[in-house]
């Protein structure tokens, strides 16, 4: 069994604002192993984004512990958040600049990633000239630029229309698998979770805690479109639906 790379131990988190306090997580425990693709589903507003911020260390827990074995994280948001005033290439280099890793070598690696995943012809374009799917792919490559150990994906497909979404989803999942990354995907789309993940965690309504965890049994089949055709897909869907609404 691979080593644990991220671990939540009875984590609680409370937001304090002038208007009051919001309990966003309570007794939240789970762990992610190296190379695993974990999907987390939960009702909207339950604390999913909070969970990712905790994992990335942007927030510290009010109670409990988050251990991450010193790994590095790459964050991908709902929208691509490419900077309109930078060319696609400059956007991809952004994390290198921020982390002061902007070496010729690193740039070469990012360029080869861009080439490998079909962005080579668009490097000198501005984001506004790219399609929604292309932009999301660029956002993923930007996330991969610093070669992080764990990818944190916060509903990265939910801003796309259905058709694009299925394709981009397959696209992005394929890249993550090929690059052998550990991934923590947040979604409120049950079928997306089943079709992508090795393991699905179900969160309760706010404050978030894990109410169920399931290993997906699709064997070596990692193509989300093919998974959606499998017999056991609908079984999982019904079960998760019940757990989410129960």
């Amino acid at each position, binding site marked *: 069994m691979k080593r644990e790379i991220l671990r939540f131990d009875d984590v609680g988190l409370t937001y304090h604002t002038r208007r009051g306090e919001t309990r966003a997580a309570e007794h939240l425990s789970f762990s992610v192993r190296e190379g695993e693709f974990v999907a987390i589903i939960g009702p909207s507003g339950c604390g999913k984004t909070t969970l990712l911020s905790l994992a*990335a260390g*942007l927030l510290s827990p009010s109670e409990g512990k988050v251990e991450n074995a010193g790994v590095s*994280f*790459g*964050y991908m*948001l*709902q*929208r691509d*958040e490419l*900077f*309109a*005033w930078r060319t696609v290439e400059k956007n991809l280099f*952004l*994390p290198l*600049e*921020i*982390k002061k890793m902007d070496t010729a070598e690193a740039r070469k690696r990012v360029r080869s990633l861009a080439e490998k995943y079909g962005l080579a012809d668009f490097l000198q*374009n*501005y984001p*506004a*000239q790219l399609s929604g799917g292309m932009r999301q792919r660029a956002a993923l490559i930007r996330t991969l630029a*610093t070669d992080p150990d764990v990818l*944190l994906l916060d509903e990265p497909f939910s801003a796309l229309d259905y058709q694009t979404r299925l394709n981009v989803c397959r696209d992005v999942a394929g890249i993550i698998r090929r690059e052998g990354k550990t991934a923590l995907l947040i979604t409120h789309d049950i079928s997306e979770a089943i079709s992508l993940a090795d393991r699905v965690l179900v969160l309760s309504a706010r404050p978030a805690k894990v109410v169920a965890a399931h290993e997906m049994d699709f064997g070596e089949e990692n193509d989300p479109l093919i998974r959606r055709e499998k017999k056991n897909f609908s079984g999982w869907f019904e079960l998760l639906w019940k757990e989410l609404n129960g």
Partner: protein
Amino acid sequence: MKHQITYSREHALFLKKCRRHTVIVQLFRVGVLAALLGLWECVAAFGWADPFLTSSPSRICATVASLYREGTLFYHIGVTLAETIVGFLIAVALGTSIALALWWSESLRQVAEPYIVVLNALPKIALGPLIIIWFGTGSNAIVFMTVLVGLIVSVMHMLGAFVATDKNKLLLLRSMGANKIQILTKLVLPSSRAAFISMLKVNVGMAWIGSIMGEYIVSKAGLGYLIVYGGQVFKLDLVMSATCILCLLAAGMYFLVVLLEKKLVKSAER
């Protein structure tokens, strides 16, 4: 890898229509100006009104020509232009810097807020006597007035833009481990470029208000001085001439900002 794009007949027709529309708009713009000037000239020439009160384009030209012969035309223009531009640059630079400081520290922002609100509402001309006493009757007083009129507007405009920086992009940068300087230089400043340009445009107007107002209160030279002087000795030709020159200068300055905008914001980004 530029392709030669060939359009359908329909699109070619559409483009032709667009071009014709542009030409017509331009023609009307020039036409309206010519008609107004012509009418104005007629009013004076046919004695429909007293040209002593209304002046006329030809009398304005004559006045400008005589100012030029006396050698004072460019002197007055230079004085006002220098005051306006120096005041404009100080207001823009200082205003943007103050906005940056207020963006940097939320506490500072909260402390400063009531002062900004009051200073914004205060009619700056009320400070006229104070300014004369503090800065004397030279160009310094007028530059100060110009700065005063533009400063708070610049601060509020830029602070608004800085504070409105996209929350998700901030989160993205923070997730990369960016520090505050990096957030400022990589995100807040570049994403505020459009606001900066629109602040410049507003400030072109503010600077002229400030400098002419300043010259009304206290001055020995400049276009505002000519206007006040012309009014006092009932030389309306002089008033009108100075006003027309002001129009041209203000338009020129605005045009320079538009040029800067084209340079700063590439069309491909939009």
